[in-house]
């Protein structure tokens, strides 16, 4: 059982007010809030051992390096990667995706095929469009149904011997659908294609086991998992990371430099040019420790309770339609009321102290599919409560009354 009253005390921001009302934060799919245990690590880093890593012989540098590498191990354990050097620190999910797209640019040739899903975030579409333009590869899209679920039979027909890469998000950011990535990965491997899974939306709710999944690449952002912004991780199988060229040139990614030739450093440093987000990496480890202490099973079952409670209550509102009705969903509800613009609803509920996301959620193709300008998206975290949902539902009713 999750003690939400105790957990809420860990998050200082949850006690602030917005527009004179207690904050209700339902924009967790955009960024999660930070518990004091994690904030303390940031303060400790800058107060006690801020130094550049991997280079200095002095004590501070050694301490910072140890903590940074310990965080890498924590992340390795969390995702069950076989080796710690398969964990590459990035600036976030988008960075990780671009690293892979850039790496594959040198491996793809004209006529090769790349498959993405209809449920993707912009950041998971644009790099592949650029990659295909550069290489002459062909971009194919797995379609979805009205419930926001990928059509797996259509996916199988898209896979051919020319398929080199498949890119799918584990969970859709706009709709919350949990995609059947085990099947997606297995089918792709049958034709010899590599698979990158965008785990940004899944990682706060589902603990992915990269070895059990047999996934080739998995990318996440710390700021969705109670960690800081500007840091994330790319997991890659060792054999793939060795095959791909480095993303950026710079310090730390080289083994030896002469003007004739540079040899690259071993993993993970080959992909970590320059001074990394040291504090961010260490703090990401602390955030994972915090979430694991609560337990991902506990988190998931509590959030599922919130999802079911909120879904039932919202559907009682006249004219309210929920987009994304898969029975496999994380705690995300995307909805509209009649023809009311989501921006209007977001504006009114903000006045009542409630933070939700409105708009196309960087997933315009999904909005085009439903022929809507966007949705209101409420996303719940393990520190939210049913009482907050009650207040939110009343606020939505008030907004609907004013706007219709």
């Amino acid at each position, binding site marked *: 059982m999750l003690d939400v009253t105790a957990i809420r005390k860990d998050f200082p921001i949850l006690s602030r007010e917005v*527009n004179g009302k207690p904050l209700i934060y339902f924009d967790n799919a955009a960024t999660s809030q930070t518990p004091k245990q994690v904030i303390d690590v940031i303060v400790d880093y800058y107060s006690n051992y801020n130094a550049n890593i991997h280079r200095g012989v002095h004590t501070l540098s050694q301490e910072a390096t140890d903590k940074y590498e310990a965080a890498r191990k924590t992340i390795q354990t969390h995702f069950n990667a076989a080796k710690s050097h398969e964990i590459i620190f990035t600036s976030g999910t988008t960075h990780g995706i671009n690293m892979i797209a850039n790496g594959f640019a040198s491996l793809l040739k004209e006529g090769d095929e790349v498959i993405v899903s209809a449920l993707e975030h912009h950041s998971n579409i644009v790099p592949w469009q650029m990659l295909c333009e550069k290489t002459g590869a062909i971009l194919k899209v797995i379609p979805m149904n009205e419930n926001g679920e990928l059509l797996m039979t259509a996916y199988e027909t898209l896979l051919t011997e020319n398929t080199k890469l498949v890119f799918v998000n584990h969970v859709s950011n706009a709709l919350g659908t949990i995609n059947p990535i085990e099947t997606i990965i297995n089918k792709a491997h049958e034709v010899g294609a590599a698979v990158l899974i965008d785990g940004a939306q899944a990682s706060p709710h589902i603990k992915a086991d990269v070895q059990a999944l047999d996934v080739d690449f998995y990318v996440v952002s710390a700021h969705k998992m109670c960690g800081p912004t500007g840091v994330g991780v790319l997991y890659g199988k060792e054999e793939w990371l060795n095959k791909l060229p480095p993303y950026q040139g710079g310090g730390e990614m080289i083994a030896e430099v002469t003007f004739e030739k540079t040899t690259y450093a071993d993993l993970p440093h080959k992909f970590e040019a320059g001074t990394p987000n040291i504090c961010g990496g260490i703090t990401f480890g602390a955030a994972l420790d915090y979430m694991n202490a609560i337990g991902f099973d506990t988190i998931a079952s509590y959030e599922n309770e919130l999802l079911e409670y909120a879904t039932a209550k919202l559907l009682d509102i006249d004219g309210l339609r929920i987009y994304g009705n898969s029975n496999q969903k994380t705690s995300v509800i995307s909805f509209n009321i009649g023809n*009311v613009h989501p921006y209007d609803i977001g504006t009114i509920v903000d*006045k009542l102290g409630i933070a939700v996301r409105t708009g196309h959620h960087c997933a315009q193709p999904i909005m085009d599919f439903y022929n809507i300008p966007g949705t209101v998206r409420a996303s719940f975290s393990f520190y939210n409560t049913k009482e907050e949902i009650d207040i939110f539902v009343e606020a939505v009713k008030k907004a609907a009354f004013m*706007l219709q």
Partner: protein
Amino acid sequence: MTIQDIQNDIIDEFSMFDDWMQRYEYMIELGKSLPLIDDQYKTDDNIIKGCQSKVWVHAKMEDDKVVFTADSDAIITKGIIAILIRVFSNQHPKDIIDADTNFIDEIGLKEHLSPTRANGLVSMIKQLKMYAIAYQTQLN
């Protein structure tokens, strides 16, 4: 009426409201009641790219005055547009160029004109002034 007179009128009207709910209800009414732009002008050419709500603006010159029409697909945005049109339409280009929009602050809607707000209104005001500058150039 000068732009300043109209702005003062609007500030007076809004001063009657006690809280944000009444202000928003009034704006929503304004947004609902006004036919703002002819459908033929609701084209992609006239669209101002805000992040979330669409805003269209059309301008024409009549008797040395600029006449604006505009619309939005979001009703609160449309209400603010109705107010802006009331202030800026049927004015000489020079007066439009020189006018400020501080009255928005005074009627308690400042957040809607924040440059970081993704509703297109800041770009819309910029666009209104751009039209005025263009017409002023023709007059010179």
